[in-house]
C-alpha cells in the first residue's frame, strides 16, 4: 500500500507548523508500517496531548487520543486486554518525561510489549514554548528567559536504566535509519523506546536562534554519530544514534497469562 493509504486524508493539511519535525516522524512511521506489511486493523496508536500527540488523529489505524502524560497508561490497558494488537505510543518529550515520566519508567520496568516513540523537540510546543526536562542547561524558553538551569535527561540512558528491552535514537534528518529503527522497534517483543530528535522551529528554534527547520536538521546531521563510532571518542559532545539496547526478556502480557493459568489451576 502507498503510505497515503494509512492516513486520514480528510484531516490534511495537518496542523503542524511549516517544517515541524513531527511531520517527518509521521512520514517515517508510515513507511515503517508499510514495509512491515501490517494491516491497519492490527495497529493501535495511543497518544496523549501535545503537538506530537496530534499524530494519532492523522493515522488510519485504531487510535486513542488521551490525556497529557497518560498515553502509556491507556496503552497498557489496551495491550493487556488485546495483546495480539501492535501498540504504538508516540509522545512529546514533556508528555513522555515530565508529566508522564512515572508511566514511562514503569512501563519500561515491566517490559510490556509496545513501541514508545519520544518525539523530542526539547520544548513544550503546543502550549507556547515552556522548557521541558529535555531542554537542557543553558537553553532559552518562554519560562526560562534568562536561560534554563535544569539539566536534561538522556532519554536513552533513562530508558535503559529503567529496563526497556529495546532502546534506540535517531533524528528527522536520518530518515532512512529512523524507518529501519521503527521497524525493528515494532517487531521487538517487549518495551521499545525510540527517541527521535525532532525540530520545533517555531519555539525551540526561534527562542534559541537555531535558524530554519532545515538548519535544525543540519544540526542533527553534523552533531550526531553512529553509536560506538570513533568520532564520539574524539568529540564527546556528539550525540549517538542507532540501537543501544536489544535484548530478550520476559514480556509482561505473557507473564500475566501465566499468572492467570496458575490461578485457574489452583482454584479448580
Amino acid at each position, binding site marked *: 500500500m502507498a503510505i497515503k493509504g494509512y492516513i486520514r486524508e480528510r484531516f490534511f*493539511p495537518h496542523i503542524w507548523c511549516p517544517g515541524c519535525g513531527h511531520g517527518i516522524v509521521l512520514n517515517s512511521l508510515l513507511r515503517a508500517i508499510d514495509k512491515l506489511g501490517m494491516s491497519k486493523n492490527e495497529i493501535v496508536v495511543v497518544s496523549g496531548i501535545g503537538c506530537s500527540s496530534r499524530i494519532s488523529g492523522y493515522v488510519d489505524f485504531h487510535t486513542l487520543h488521551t490525556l497529557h502524560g497518560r498515553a502509556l497508561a491507556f496503552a497498557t490497558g489496551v495491550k493487556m486486554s488485546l495483546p495480539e494488537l501492535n501498540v504504538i505510543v508516540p509522545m512529546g518529550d514533556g508528555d513522555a518525561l515530565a508529566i508522564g515520566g512515572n508511566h514511562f519508567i514503569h512501563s519500561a520496568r515491566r517490559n510490556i510489549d509496545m513501541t514508545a516513540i519520544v518525539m523530542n523537540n526539547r520544548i513544550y510546543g503546543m502550549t507556547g514554548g515552556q522548557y521541558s526536562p529535555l531542554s537542557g542547561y543553558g537553553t532559552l524558553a518562554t519560562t526560562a528567559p534568562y536561560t534554563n538551569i535544569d539539566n536534561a535527561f538522556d532519554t536513552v540512558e533513562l530508558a535503559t536504566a529503567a529496563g526497556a528491552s529495546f532502546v534506540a535514537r535517531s533524528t528527522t534528518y536520518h530518515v532512512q535509519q529512523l524507518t529501519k529503527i521503527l521497524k525493528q522497534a515494532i517487531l521487538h517483543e517487549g518495551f521499545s523506546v525510540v527517541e527521535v530528535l525532532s525540530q520545533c522551529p517555531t519555539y525551540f528554534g526561534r527562542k534559541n536562534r537555531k535558524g530554519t527547520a532545515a538548519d535544525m536538521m543540519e544540526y542533527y546531521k553534523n552533531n550526531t554519530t553512529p553509536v560506538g563510532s570513533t568520532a564520539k571518542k574524539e568529540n564527546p559532545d556528539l550525540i549517538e544514534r542507532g540501537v543501544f539496547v536489544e535484548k530478550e526478556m520476559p514480556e509482561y502480557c505473557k507473564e500475566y497469562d501465566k499468572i492467570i493459568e496458575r490461578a485457574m489451576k489452583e482454584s479448580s
Partner: protein
Amino acid sequence: MAKPKLKAHVINREWCKGCGICVHFCPKNVLELDEEDKVVAARREDCICCKMCELRCPDLAIEIETE
C-alpha cells in the same frame, strides 16, 4: 538494478507549506520554492530519483513517480 527513470514530481500544493526542507537537502538542487512559497521541480532533468525529498517532507506533499 536499472536506474529508476523519473516520471513526475507529484506535488500537492494544498499540503505543501513551503518549509524548504526538500529544497535544502536535494542533492541535485532540483527543487525551488515559487512566488507562493510552494515547491516546484525547477530543474527536473537533474533529478536522480533518490526520493530524499519525499522521505523528509513533513507534510507528505511531494512524491517521486518513477517508470
